[in-house]
């Protein structure tokens, strides 16, 4: 699960936390936990606020627990102190078979003394947590999704009060679970106000990060709601970033497979129905006619083609080039329209790429001779989830001393050789594989490398050798007599 990666805590600290949750439960107490779930299509944003109170001096490591079901869907996890922008170091302690939970530790910036309090805000993004219900819909039917969650927020510490708020995108909520036999409460378990469904408050929950709690006390809740936008899933993304020093160019090539994860189309696609909907401006919610992508400023020579050929139903509005650095807000807008509207259950694969000036992404430090390049991890598609991503960075021929920084830990990383036009020994290629990327994965990949001057000359010299070969053949040819001599 890709998330912010920070240097691990010391072994001593991990030895203190790793033993059973019961021993970790002694140093903190949750005075209040509020979990807010923002329901969406492919992505669900969950913000959990923990009001913690330290029970002993010097408490600085807080342990978070995620149940199996929640962990399976979580693909982005970030912890901050309320009101502060600094992201806190997070350490993954993995699955605990005896308690059946996944543990994470957060390092608070300042250790708390006894009865010291802090407000911890943990944001997560869940992918594949919703599914269409009904699973099939005709062309003009509305789209509804169901979301499953666990009722209680589990924690290795005792909780005084907790509540869960589930916010649907519209007020049209078809149904929501009203759980029975819920412990820890005497009032009504669930209330609905507008688009928000509140479960709780639940009082005096003991340390709940254990299999026993999950088996006996935990309840499942399901919310069935309408969703008025297409649910976009990118099944596979292959992104290649190629750096050229001769042409001072950075080429980005994305091959994507779009999948509409909404309700499957029932019946056949009626072009007449589609045109009628377009004419009256009432497109079906689960239809994906096109998507607007935000691309970097300064791009040129963009290409968009699929298996059939060039797709001309798109419009690119470019912004002028901006110098490198994270300061600019300028962007280019691509209004991408596939050949056909992507209905529920349909796929569409295409290749989108562009060239951009290398000076907008790369810097050169003369004193160390190092080049540093920073490229975005991927072109973020709002509200879409990327199931599998393979990101490659192709460096110039002869690059050495390659070091790179990935904003999120990759599933696999390797450096291999890539051969392309006019290469002799090939270029180093960094391949990173990711799973379940969301619109929160907006980090940059940074690579530093050195290219000696003679490596730049390799290409012209290779071509020169080829020319010389032709001249050598010409030299010998002139001196060979191929006439059929008359005796």
């Amino acid at each position, binding site marked *: 699960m890709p998330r912010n990666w920070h*240097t691990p805590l010391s072994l001593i600290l991990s030895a203190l936390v790793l033993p059973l949750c019961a021993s970790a439960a002694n140093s903190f107490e949750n005075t209040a936990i509020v979990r807010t779930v923002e329901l969406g299509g492919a992505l669900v944003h969950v913000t959990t606020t923990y009001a913690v109170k330290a029970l002993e001096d010097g408490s600085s490591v807080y342990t978070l627990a995620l149940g199996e079901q929640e962990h399976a869907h979580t693909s982005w996890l970030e912890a901050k102190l309320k009101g502060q922008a600094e992201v806190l170091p997070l350490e993954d302690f993995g699955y605990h078979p005896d308690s059946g939970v996944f543990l994470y530790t957060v390092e608070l910036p300042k250790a708390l003394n006894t009865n010291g309090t802090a407000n911890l805000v943990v944001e997560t993004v869940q992918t594949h947590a919703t599914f269409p219900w009904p699973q099939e819909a005709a062309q003009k039917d509305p789209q509804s999704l169901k979301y499953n969650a666990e009722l209680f927020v589990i924690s290795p510490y005792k909780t005084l009060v907790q509540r869960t708020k589930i916010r649907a995108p519209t007020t049209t909520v078809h149904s929501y679970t009203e759980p029975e036999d819920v412990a820890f409460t005497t009032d009504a378990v669930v209330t609905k106000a507008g688009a928000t469904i509140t479960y709780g408050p639940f009082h005096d929950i003991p340390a709940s990060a254990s299999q026993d709690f999950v088996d006996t006390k935990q309840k499942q809740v399901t919310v069935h709601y309408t969703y008025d936008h297409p649910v976009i899933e990118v099944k596979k993304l292959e992104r290649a970033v*190629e750096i*050229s*020093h*001769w*042409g*001072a*160019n950075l*080429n980005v090539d994305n091959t994507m497979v779009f999948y509409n994860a909404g309700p499957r189309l029932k019946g056949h696609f009626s072009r007449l129905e589609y045109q009628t909907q377009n004419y009256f401006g009432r497109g079906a919610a689960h239809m994906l006619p096109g998507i607007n992508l935000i691309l970097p400023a300064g791009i040129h*020579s963009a290409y968009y083609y699929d298996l059939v050929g060039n797709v001309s139903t798109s419009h690119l509005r470019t912004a002028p080039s901006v*110098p*490198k*650095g*994270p300061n600019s807000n300028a962007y280019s807008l691509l209004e991408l329209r596939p050949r056909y509207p992507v209905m529920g259950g349909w796929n569409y694969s295409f290749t989108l790429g562009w*060239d951009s*000036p*290398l*000076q*907008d992404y*790369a*810097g*050169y*430090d*003369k004193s160390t001779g190092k*080049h*540093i*390049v*920073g490229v975005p991890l991927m072109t973020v598609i709002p509200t879409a989830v990327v199931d599998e991503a393979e990101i490659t960075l192709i460096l110039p021929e002869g690059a050495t001393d*390659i*070091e*790179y*920084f*990935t*904003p999120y830990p990759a599933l696999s990383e390797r*450096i291999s050789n890539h051969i*392309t*036009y*006019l290469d002799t020994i090939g270029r180093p290629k960094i391949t990173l594989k990711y799973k379940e990327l969301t619109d929160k994965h907006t980090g*940059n990949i*940074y690579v*530093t490398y050195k290219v000696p001057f003679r490596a*730049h000359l390799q*290409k*012209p*010299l*290779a*071509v*020169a*050798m*080829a*020319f*010389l070969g032709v*001249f*050598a053949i*010409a*030299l010998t040819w*002139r*001196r060979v007599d191929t006439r059929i001599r008359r005796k």
Partner: protein
Amino acid sequence: MALLTLDYTQALHKATPPFAPFIPVALLPYIAFVLLGATFALAFYFSTLPKDKIPVRELAVASTASLLGGFGVVAMFCNAGVYL
């Protein structure tokens, strides 16, 4: 391969002067034209040279033409959009 930290790389990326190629990209089409034209002319001249026992002159002309051709082809590739 070593992994860097976010703060260090971000600061380094921001602070370093932007990349500048040895040959400005705007000049590449003209350089390609001149070099490839020279290669063609030298190749033609090569074909008119007399056949000596030790082909010193032919080899000199051939080497110059090849070298100019090498750079010219690379410039032409970049000009055509195949950024090497």
